[in-house]
């Protein structure tokens, strides 16, 4: 197992190196003038030139690439072009906020979706099964920013049950924070419930039809025991894998929700950095999300290995 983890970590470092290179290439493809961007349209060309010199954007590309590699090791990306603050001061709080939203969204979504998927599988081809599948397909096809606007208007503005903005005032307690985060988290539930439920249903049906389940049942084990020890462990492996990769995506992919609910998370930060060509912030943000993505995928693989003895054996061999 330790060898497996080490191997995965080695691959992760290579992937990160490639990611940094791609980020550098992409950010240098954009035509940009950071000095002009900071000094504004009314500054003289001399002022702009001085700023570009200070920022090092006039340096040879190789030097700039070397700086980005160094920054990626130390995670010190300097100051944001747009705001003038150190990148880390902007990125870490945004990461914390995104983590809260993703975590809350998953807490609402994953247990409900798994329960619904397993329930539907056990009642295969019944009205309940078809209802859950249809509902799942329908809800998955609604983009989160559409369901976000609808929830915000009807539940937030019209009914007034939850706050329409996701960010709670500074110093708020957990209950207040959750009240603010509920609508965007429900938007996540709308999108991911169907997807995860269908995935779980399919895995459960496959596990229910498997020989080991039939054997366990014929041995006289209780249904509960069979479901927990034999079906769930096997049925949930694809679900765990999907959730693991989706977490990485969610950290940066919730731009629509973050804009609608005015939530300053990582997605919005990267989006703004990209539109304003704030390359230090953009590079740091993309690389950070890449790291999170890799950690989540690794974690999902380890969980699957833990759940499935055969997977463990494959890993160690």
């Amino acid at each position: 197992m330790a060898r497996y983890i080490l191997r995965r970590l080695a691959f992760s470092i290579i992937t990160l190196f490639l990611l940094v290179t791609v980020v550098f290439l992409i950010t240098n493809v954009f035509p940009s003038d950071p000095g002009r961007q900071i000094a504004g349209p009314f500054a003289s060309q001399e002022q702009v030139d001085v700023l570009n010199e200070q920022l090092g954007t006039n340096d040879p590309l190789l030097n700039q690439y070397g700086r980005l590699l160094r920054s990626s090791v130390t995670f010190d990306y300097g100051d944001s072009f747009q705001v003038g603050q150190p990148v880390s001061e902007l990125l870490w709080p945004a990461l914390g906020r995104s983590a809260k939203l993703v975590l809350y969204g998953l807490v609402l979504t994953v247990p409900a979706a798994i329960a619904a998927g397993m329930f539907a599988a056990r009642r295969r081809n019944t009205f309940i099964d078809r209802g859950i599948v249809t509902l799942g397909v329908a809800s998955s096809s609604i983009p989160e920013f559409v369901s976000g606007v609808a929830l915000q208007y009807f539940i937030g503005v019209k009914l007034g049950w939850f706050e329409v903005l996701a960010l709670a005032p500074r110093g708020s307690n957990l209950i207040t924070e959750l009240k603010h985060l509920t609508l965007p988290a429900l938007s996540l539930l709308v999108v991911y419930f169907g997807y995860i439920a269908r995935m779980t249903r399919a895995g459960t049906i496959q596990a229910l039809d498997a020989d080991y389940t039939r054997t366990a049942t014929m041995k006289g084990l209780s249904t509960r025991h069979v479901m927990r020890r034999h079906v769930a462990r096997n049925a949930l492996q694809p679900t765990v894998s999907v959730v693991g990769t989706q977490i990485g995506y969610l950290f940066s992919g919730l731009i629509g929700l973050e804009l609608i609910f005015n939530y300053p998370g990582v997605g919005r930060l990267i989006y703004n950095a990209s539109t304003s060509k704030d390359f230090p912030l953009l590079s740091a943000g993309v690389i950070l999300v890449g790291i999170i993505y890799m950690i989540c995928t690794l974690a999902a693989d380890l969980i699957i290995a833990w759940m499935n003895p055969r997977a463990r054996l494959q890993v160690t061999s």
Partner: protein
Amino acid sequence: MDWKRFDGVRHNVGPVHLDLVESYAQGRISRRQFVRRGAVIGLSVPMISAVIAACGDDDASSPTGGAGTPGTGSAPGTTPGTASGSTTAPGTGPATTLVGGTPGGIITVGAQIPGALDPIAMQDLGAYGLIAQCFEFLATLGDDGRIAPGLAESWEPNEDGSVWTFQLRQGVKWQDGSDFSSADVAATMDRLVAAANAGLAGVIEEGAVDATDPNVAVFNLAAPNGNFPALVSVFNAQTPITPAAFESGMTLDGAPNGTGPWKLDRFDAATGCTFVRNDAWWGGQVPLDGTEFQFFDDLGTMLTAMQGGSVDALIQFSVIGGDALLSSPDFKVLDIQTATHRQVWMRTDEGQFADKRVRQALALTFDRDQMLETLFRGRGNIGNDHPIAPFFPYFDESVPQRTKNIDMAKQLLTDAGIDGLSAALQIPNLQEIPELAQLIVAGAAEAGINLQIAQESTQTFYGSQWCPGEPADPPCSGAAELGIVDYGDRPTPDIYLNAALKTNGIWNSSQYSNPDLDAAFSEFQSSVDVEGQKAACKTMETILNDEVPVGLPFFYNFLSGHSTEIQGVRITGLGQMFLDKASRV
């Protein structure tokens, strides 16, 4: 006419003030123009009231009467510059005057994400709004929307308007406890000169302020200027007074040390900032405990936040998308008449628009009423292809209004020998400008002019299309031949004329050069009487309307507002929201 009272006033004012008083007494200017102009040149409120009373006005106790109704959220076409919810003039008494409100608490304001908070270099409404919480101006915003005493208690010009003397308010302290003095004013002005402030360029030079007396700032201008106080007022957003030790590049969040009613408590570029009451403020104790500015980068979200009760006030919103607020009984609209406008610049020195008949033809395809109605639900004023807004006291209404006339446009194109004019219309992706461009394209097509919209991000547009840095001489000589650019509100048209239309102006994208216009502009600036300014404006309006270096279809109102659960909110057309008198109802 109460001659005795009138004579008393005449003996107590200087020559510049006297000219204005005489103009009003003889009916050459309206009461509204008299009040507005009087505020600019430093005529005190009691003096204005006395003149109006002497001239037989029944409502002399309120010089603003009839020019907008404070406290009701002025309707379009009334009070220019602001809307207000209270009645005590700033600078004339403590700000704790609280009518029907509840002291304490905080108010949350929805605002756009600000750029860098450097008072001298800031360029956006988000930054203007925050800076105005902490730093103050020599002349600030009065409840009637006009200039009122701020850090200066009064001001007056010499005989020809080349020297302006500002009596500074005494007992004012910076938030670090040090005293405010004329040295701070002098240092601020030097920094503004070094930064080539668009409003003060050519008006003052380095060392213009004589700060010998710490309580008096004497401005020695490069040339006489009858509008000078407006140029160092809240309406020239980059001119708040900062401490003498302040340096260009220092920002509010880095060096929070103003004289204003609020002290910066916390600033987070991603989320917002909070202010707490400055108990040492010269204006007394403000009713609220503090304020919070929450940043938004999406207007739709800000509107939803207002509807959902997450914010109490909005710095700005637009008619498009803001219908729900405009019709909501729980929302008080602050509708402010401003000189904010869009200029359709056309290169006059080369290319397809060098012939003025072509420029006139394009301007004749504008359906100005339709533009104003479609884009702003009629909240604004029709423009006549010059930047002198109809509510300026010196606006000359005798220049005929240009209206849509496709036949004449076609005839002009034929006379110019143009067949099949085709051009790219360069625009920034900003507010309603894309929609405006579509209306212009549709109108132009009726006259056979084929325009293609070329839209660009605001971050690149100004440097690549409107006024590229290279070639640097003359400025903007690398501009595209046709485009739309935005101009914010200003208290006088000086900046628009000086920067965009004067020969070699720093924002002269149309590369327009006309010695007659330059001369008329100099005459306008040096005139300290309304008559002289009006005469100069007539010349400029005529020239610009005829030569059309820029098409200017409308001036539109600034929309702001707040929940009916709060009161006492005032705001300028530049997004500076004043909350020193605000409270919860």
